[in-house]
């Protein structure tokens, strides 16, 4: 019995780590660029295909493929900010939403054309390995996911707290106009923020994809889960987002034992709707621009 619970707990952590990586990508962009990126799920999908190509087609070693994916995605994020996001930053939110929706449609369709809709697999050396601890088993890939995610967030936290750019990011998230007046390069910070967000999606793909299949629509459900997390965490508050992600991961991991996956999804949507209605400030945070 205990092993079942620990099993579910660890699965929940792994799922939570995935949600945390994706949701923080959305949250960081919203906090700093004031834009909700509806294409973020497709960033993850795109990263998954890039990772697949590097790992399975080019046959790079796992670590290298993972790093290259993160790097490639960061560059893509920066490029996208420059070409598509910058022109619409001053437009009303509906236009921004639609622009990112367009990117989402484009990426999904491109993936369908390029790779077909048949699910692909990209196994890592750890995919099949199970660690035996006492009387329970846990997938090593999941442990890797949890471990690397933790390291990544610690590193990101340090970056934001200590470095000049990180401080600039915090400043912009608080008061954009003041930053412009003071001479902070807001556009550069926006670009870096997008790069980080996309990079996080890349990391998520490299860590989680060995456990699942790859298809053009894999990002769609995930983006909605990301919204659930971001709303539960309170839009823009980084630490709260991570906690909310872990919470959601655990809730899903435990409920899936008793109900169908469909109902687990409905549960998440209900959580989102419920939070929006009863605690629009999120479970922990204060209202940020919403």
């Amino acid at each position, binding site marked *: 019995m205990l092993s079942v619970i620990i099993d579910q707990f660890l699965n929940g952590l792994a799922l939570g780590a995935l949600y945390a990586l994706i949701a923080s990508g959305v949250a960081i962009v919203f906090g700093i660029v004031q834009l*909700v990126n509806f294409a973020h799920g497709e960033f993850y999908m795109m990263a998954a295909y890039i990772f697949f190509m590097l790992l399975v087609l080019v046959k790079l070693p796992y670590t290298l493929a993972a790093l290259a994916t993160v790097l490639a995605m960061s560059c893509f994020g920066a490029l996208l900010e420059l070409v*598509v996001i910058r*022109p*619409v930053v001053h*437009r009303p*939110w*509906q*236009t*921004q*939403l*639609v*622009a990112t*929706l*367009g*990117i*989402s*449609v*484009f*990426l*999904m*369709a*491109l993936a*369908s*054309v390029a790779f077909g809709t048949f699910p692909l697999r990209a196994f890592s050396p750890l995919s099949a390995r199970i660690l035996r601890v006492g009387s329970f088993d846990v997938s090593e890939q999941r442990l890797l996911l949890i471990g690397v995610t933790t390291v990544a967030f610690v590193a990101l936290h340090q970056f934001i707290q200590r470095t000049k750019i990180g401080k600039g990011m915090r400043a912009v998230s608080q008061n954009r106009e003041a930053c412009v007046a003071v001479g902070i390069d807001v556009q550069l910070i926006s670009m870096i923020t997008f790069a980080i967000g996309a990079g996080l999606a890349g990391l998520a793909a490299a860590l989680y994809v060995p456990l699942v299949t790859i298809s053009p629509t894999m990002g*769609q459900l995930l983006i*909605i889960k990301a*919204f*659930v997390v971001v*709303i539960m965490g309170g839009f823009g508050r980084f630490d709260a987002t991570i906690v909310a992600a872990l919470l959601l991961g655990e809730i899903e991991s435990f409920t899936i034992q008793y109900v*169908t996956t*469909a*109902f687990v*999804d*409905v549960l998440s*949507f*209900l959580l*989102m*709707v419920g939070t*929006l*209605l009863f605690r*629009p400030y999120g479970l922990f945070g204060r209202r940020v621009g*919403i």
Partner: protein
Amino acid sequence: MMPALTRFSTSQPGGWGRAGRLTWWLIVGAALIAWPVLIPSDYAIGVAVTALIYVALALGFDLIAGRVGLLSFAHPAFFGIGAYVAALLALHWGIGFELRALASIVCAVLAATVIGIPCFRLTLHAFAMGTLGFAQIAYVVALGWQDVTRGPLCLPGVPPVDFGFGRWHWSAGSLTDYYYVGLGLAVLVFISVRQVTSGRIGRAWKAIKEDELLAAAEGVPLLKYKLLAFAIGAGIAGVTGAFYASYATLVCPTEVALTYSVNLIIILYLGGRASILGPILGAVLFTALPEYLRVAQEWRLVFYGVLIVVGSVYMPEGIVTWVSERIQQTRTRQRGKDGNGADITTR
């Protein structure tokens, strides 16, 4: 001394004059009615029916997304509810189309009220996300409530559109029949939307869209009017769903999927919002252009994606608005030369 009043009108610039506009409508009307005769290919008529369905949906969606300015993802839920209700009523109880359509409208409006009341408390992105949440719930229900909807197995064999009055009975047989019913539906929707938006309701929506605080100060009950736009749009989607159920004879959970939201958003952002012509143009372009350009099915979405992004950047209001603004600008430039911008103080 009221020359200004006689020129006052709420509709777009009448450069053609009344007779000109009437002639234009007659030509268009004639072409629409004669379409199946002019181009008798089943393929073309099928495309036309799809276009008509999207015209109706887009006009309804524009009420909330264009006129009031609240981007909602819930519309497919209303369309899907309409389709499922009509299909179930027809399959299990053999109910005629008039009652099915009515039931679809009622259910869609109910859903709109249930979704709208909580969601309208939210602003901006939160509203979009709330509607997205509800839409997803609807999709999952359609997929999962197998006892009723048969989930992914769909509801096949939906009876055709049929009208009956006393002893007279007619049911749609051919594709051309469906074209004319669809045309009738689109025309009814067109008239209803025109009616509702040209009066006080449309003006109140315009006010809400531009400045809610000011609208409230002028006495507009915000929630009521937002719900009104939402409900009317939902009702339109519902009856269109009922039509679709019979036309496609098959109702699947994909009818409730996110793709319809994306399609409608593409249509409005392509054609133009807060106008009658915008959604119509968008719907026609969206349906016809890929067919005309013979774009392969898979590349279609790539094409749309690029189109939406480019449109958002360069023509955020859509083609129709962009064009009418250009016309407006040339007119104002001409009027400005008469010099009627003098300040009151020179009186």
